[in-house]
């Protein structure tokens, strides 16, 4: 009787084990399939746009003439965002990891994480309704005083809905990403390195310069790369803030466009070949962000292996 129930339960258990491990593995494979599917379906739907005669694509000069300016616009917006966000994010990360009183630090970290919780469309609305209006006098000043630099060439946009405003909004959105990753890395700095530097008479800043930053450099680089990935793909902030147009060098005039915003603004009303063109644009964006993210992840994994952290 006892043996019987044992064997039956074993039989059921073995089947249960097989089913469960199979389901777990299938779920894992499904994720790989989805990522592969993302690439596959984008390529399939993009092919008509890539093979279509040039004059049938918007602009009339083929797909690459259509995509090139908005790729450049995407890069401009992302670079602005990173130039602003990186120093601030590293400062905030250092503040939370090494400057703030220990008891406040986790609470302050949570406050910065709140920045990441705000939906992108709200940032877009804020940028369009508040920031653009408030910042346009500064653009006037830039145009009048630094107008000889091509990126500040006037006349400045009266509404303030420029690529620079969009870049500033993007920088706010990537700030929490760079901050939280750099903070993690800074907190992993070996305590002995820090204490050795302090014991040799280093000031706090010298200790950070000698122990924390060299240790965290790969982490910072990959955090910036991940921030870049986010800035490249962010849609709503740009779609709502930027009054788009042709590619222009000046950052304080209306003009320029990013891939993501171009898709969001045109896809809902698109039909026919236009849909394929936009999906092809999405494919380009996918490839760019995939490359950026893979490099970032590769740096993190490589760093993990010899740092002894984790």
């Amino acid at each position, binding site marked *: 009787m006892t043996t019987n129930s044992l064997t039956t339960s074993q039989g059921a258990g073995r089947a249960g084990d097989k089913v469960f*491990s199979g389901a777990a593995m299938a779920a894992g494979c499904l994720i790989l399939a989805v990522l592969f599917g993302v690439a596959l379906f984008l390529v399939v739907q993009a092919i008509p746009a890539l093979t279509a005669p040039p004059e049938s694509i918007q602009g009339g000069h083929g797909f690459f003439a259509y995509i090139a300016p908005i790729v450049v616009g995407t890069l401009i917006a992302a670079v602005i965002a990173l130039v602003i966000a990186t120093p601030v994010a590293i400062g905030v990360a250092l503040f939370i990891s090494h400057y703030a009183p220990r008891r406040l630090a986790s609470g302050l970290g949570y406050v910065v994480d709140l920045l990441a919780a705000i*939906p*992108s469309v709200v940032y877009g*609305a*804020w940028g369009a309704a508040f920031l653009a209006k408030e910042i346009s006098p500064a653009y006037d000043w830039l145009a009048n005083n630094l107008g000889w630099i091509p990126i500040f060439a006037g006349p400045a946009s009266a509404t303030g809905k420029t690529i620079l405003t969009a870049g500033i909004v993007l920088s706010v959105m990537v700030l929490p990403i760079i901050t939280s990753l750099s903070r993690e890395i800074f907190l992993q700095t070996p305590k002995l390195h820090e204490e050795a530097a302090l014991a040799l008479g280093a000031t706090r800043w010298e200790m950070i310069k000698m122990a924390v930053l060299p240790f965290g450099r790969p982490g910072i680089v990959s955090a910036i790369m991940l921030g870049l990935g986010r800035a490249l*793909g962010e849609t709503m902030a740009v779609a709502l803030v930027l009054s788009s147009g042709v590619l222009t060098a000046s950052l304080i005039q209306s003009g320029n466009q990013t891939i993501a915003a171009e898709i969001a603004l045109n*896809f809902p009303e698109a039909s026919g070949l236009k849909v394929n063109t936009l999906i092809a644009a999405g494919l380009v964006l996918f490839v760019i962000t995939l490359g*950026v993210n893979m490099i970032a992840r590769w740096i993190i994994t490589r760093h993990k292996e010899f740092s002894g952290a984790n």
Partner: protein
Amino acid sequence: MTATAVRKRSALTKGQLPKSAPYIVLAVALVVGAAILALIGFNAFGWGLVSAILFAVGLVSWSGAVEGARKAKDRLATCLVVGAFLIALLPLISVIWTVLVNGIPGLITPNFLGTSMNGVTGAFDNKAAEDGAPVLGGIYHALLGTIQITLLATVISVPVGLLTSIYLVEYGNDRPLARAITFFVDVMTGIPSIVAGLFAAAFFFAIVGPGTKTGAVAAVALSVLMIPVVVRSSEEMLKIVPNELREASYALGVRKWRTITKVVIPTAISGIASGVTLAIARVIGETAPILVTAGFATTINNNVFGGWMASLPTFIYTQILNPTSPSNPGPSDQRAWGAALVLIILVMLLNLGARLIARIFAPKTGR
């Protein structure tokens, strides 16, 4: 008299600024900043900026004169780091303030949460803007759509994400497949949300037919964004379940799958639940994928599998970009900000809920 005062200063503290130095400099900087701003026209932002610059310059140069260049550099670094933190707070405060100020009038409009935009035309908005008639229309349809789409996305993502994390932690053993999944899950977290939307759209265009736009398509798009978040957080939580628990269970002769479902998951459930809640909070505010997959409706749609569907983020977006009455965008703006306030409250509640869940369902430690 002076001789005693000099003798009282210890050799150890010689050449240092008094502890009150930053406060003195701050007070002076605030006063001088106010004076400068009074000359060129006062505003609070400029006052803060000028005072901060004066404070940094003053403290660093004083420290440089008394304490030497190294200490001065240290103080400069401290000023910059604290300044960076304050700068990071500015947009947060500004965004929340803007949404509150603009959103409350929309939110307190009668029936804002209970009506849809069905039948609300530009004529009503013109009347509201010109004659002061009440602003009609609300976000009921969008709220309903958001809840339906997010629920469906959760139903898809949680089993897949949880099973994947179980595979990675319990069965993976650092096999090539497990390593590939870990890597690609990390890569997937970086997929731009609009590309996820395009994928879902392209997928359904190919399978069902061109132009298919329903709530379910949007849910698939959101799942693509949500699964990696669920996998990452559940994986972390499963990893910290002590191995002793598993071994104790195996020692009692319990099967592996029973061990996982009866021992490992209940131990980690608080972390998993809060991770899922955070993942929901992340996708509930996504706009771009819904925009390209579910279109935008002005009426209530209770069917996720058929017809265009509104959602809070796309409602905000369309109301701002294409006001109901192009000549009088005021009422549309009011509705958009009201919806933005509701959305932010939802996201904050989910974030709070995640923390509460983590605390309430935390495994009892026994001691």
